[in-house]
């Protein structure tokens, strides 16, 4: 359980339109909230933007977060927004250094909730070693938003040994999954109206930058591709890989880790864990020669005990993912048509 800074005494207990006006209320909200919690040298300048040096190759990514509910087991929209962008940058072979943070708040949002989210953001940033260096806050009328939307953009220096490129993938490469599937999506579902089943499943939201950098330190350009299977799940990411690389993928269902409780919840909801969202998981496509070593290192990571080699790249059946089922049958895994779960991140 993370520690939360006590909320300072404020003249207001909910967000109103005035907080987005740019006037006194805005500065009170920012000074007591955002700036005091997230302070660092660059942010403290309160300039229109942040000015800094970067070296070498740089990776940049942006993501918006509209998850509902905003609080869930294992996290909230705050750490989701921080980790989500850090992870997109990690998948480029880089460790995020700086983030921008944009809020769209709905009139009526409770200050206590906003405070908790800000604290979670602070904690997630500290844990991952990134700094929020610029930001923006807007308020929309009640009914025109849904409590809080967050956008984050991140920037980071690419690891000097990294060479992540879809064109590096070749037949025989192994596909390694860093942990068990579907925890985030099922956590969100369990909160949804009508689905309030008892569960101890929690979201897997976490930053992946440190483990990715460790793997790159060790295996460098033997790692050909990194992807995080968020919306659309594992099946979607694998399909995208086959289509972008014009190669095929063979995977084996029995090697794909799914926790028993998550599997049970998927059965009950009629969902396929292969298509359910994850927030702290990644797929590595790596040279077959180092796959076993990479797996061992991944399994030593605190969240990697269930990591597994789930399949490989093939020149057969290009642009298709084939899965051998637990009972030995084979089927094509297609892209998800439409959404399986709306607004999971």
């Amino acid at each position: 359980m993370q520690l939360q800074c006590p909320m300072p005494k404020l003249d207001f207990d909910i967000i109103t339109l005035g907080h987005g006006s740019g006037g006194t209320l805005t500065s009170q909200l920012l000074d007591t909230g955002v700036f005091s919690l997230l302070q660092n040298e660059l942010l403290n300048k309160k300039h229109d933007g942040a000015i800094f040096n970067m070296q070498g190759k740089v990776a940049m990514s942006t993501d918006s977060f509209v998850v509902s509910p905003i609080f869930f087991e294992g996290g909230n929209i705050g750490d989701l927004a921080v980790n989500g962008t850090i992870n997109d940058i990690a998948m480029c072979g880089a460790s995020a250094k700086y983030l921008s943070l944009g809020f769209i708040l709905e009139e009526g949002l409770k200050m206590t909730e906003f405070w908790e989210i800000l604290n979670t953001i602070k904690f997630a940033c500290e844990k991952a070693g990134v700094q929020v260096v610029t930001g923006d806050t807007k308020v929309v009328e009640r009914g025109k938003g849904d409590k809080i939307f967050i956008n984050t953009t991140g920037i980071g220096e690419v690891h000097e040994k990294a060479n992540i490129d879809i064109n590096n993938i070749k037949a025989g490469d192994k596909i390694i999954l860093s942990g068990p599937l579907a925890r985030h999506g099922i956590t969100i579902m369990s909160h949804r109206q009508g689905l309030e089943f008892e569960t101890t499943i929690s979201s897997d939201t976490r930053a992946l930058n440190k483990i990715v950098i460790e793997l790159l330190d060790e295996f460098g350009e033997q790692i050909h591709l990194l992807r995080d299977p968020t919306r659309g799940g594992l099946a979607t990411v694998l399909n995208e890989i086959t289509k972008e690389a014009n190669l095929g993928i063979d995977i084996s269902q029995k090697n794909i880790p799914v926790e028993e409780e998550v599997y049970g919840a998927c059965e009950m909801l009629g969902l396929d864990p292969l298509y359910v969202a994850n927030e702290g998981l990644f797929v590595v496509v790596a040279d077959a020669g180092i796959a076993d070593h990479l797996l061992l290192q991944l399994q030593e990571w605190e969240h990697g005990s269930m990591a597994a080699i789930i399949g490989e790249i093939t020149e057969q059946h290009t642009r298709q993912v084939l899965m051998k089922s637990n009972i030995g049958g084979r089927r094509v895994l297609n892209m998800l048509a439409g959404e399986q779960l709306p607004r999971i991140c």
Partner: protein
Amino acid sequence: MKYISEFRSPEIVNTLLREIKNTVKGRWNIMEVCGGQTHSLVKNGILNMLPENIQMIHGPGCPVCVTPISLIDRAVHLAMEHNVILCSYGDMIRVPGSGMSLLEAKARGADVRILYSPLEAVKIAKENPGREVVFFAVGFETTAPANALSVIHARKENVNNYFILASHVLVPPAIEEIMNDELNRVDGFLGAGHVCAIMGIYEYYPLVEKYKVPIVITGFEPVDLLEGILMVVKQLESGEAKVENQYARIVSEEGNVKAQEMIYEVFEVTDRLWRGMEVIPMSGYKVKDSYRDFDAEKKFNIHIEEASENPECIAGDIMKGIKKPYECQHFGKKCRPVSPLGAPMVSNEGACAAYYHYSGLAEQLEV
């Protein structure tokens, strides 16, 4: 989960496959009635594990697929024009009506909500006394008890702003319709396990008698399906035609009597139009007159033109097993899950969607 894993055991699956291969001599077309069975056959890759001379034909047991286009239009109309809170099972909201789907209606401002249980809709009605709440009550005999229960609850708790738009369909009349079609090529049936869990088995004896066709009530796991197929093949090879129950761990002779009582409290049997087929006599449920206050059809004046099906969709032939999805010229081209011409491409349980997700496999694997 331990219990279920036995029904997914690769060893037992292999034993059953061997036994099927050793038993089968003729060429047989076996129809799995229920869409859940279709889905499981495809998902587990069972279709390409079976001997070549056993063809599985995918039956009409997908509630989303057989709900007529006019009913979708009525639901859309209620949501768009009458400002109701329209609650539905998730699968239904993507099915195209003649104008739009419920999903599009939602995007255009209608209050459409996806629920897993009609009792949730009653709760929504209680929480929104100023609004009218309609549950889109479709499905086979399986969903009828819960839908009936929601109405019984609403009456008991004086929730007078809750209504159901009901279009239930029944399995036995559909089997009869299939057997009566002159193009029929079904030699045996896997009966729908969950339907029989509610309704029992007794309705199937007259069918077996009349059409001399084996019916084996079957479950949904790989071992269930293969065991059901084996039982049908054994009957066919020995020239028998009887009702057997593979799914006895769930299905009893008389079914779930309490659930049946709930159904008959609220619903009565009526003629029903099936999507892609004709009106099948006595093939569905409608809300009884004694519960008319909860019947959305009676409550709201729904005046809309009766739309006809998209003539390019051959859903009727698909659902009767006369044509396979890939025999449709639009399959995978003009008709795909993201832009379906008809319902079998929409639902997870629809035969076309199941084949779409399996598409290309036969050519690629040459099994």
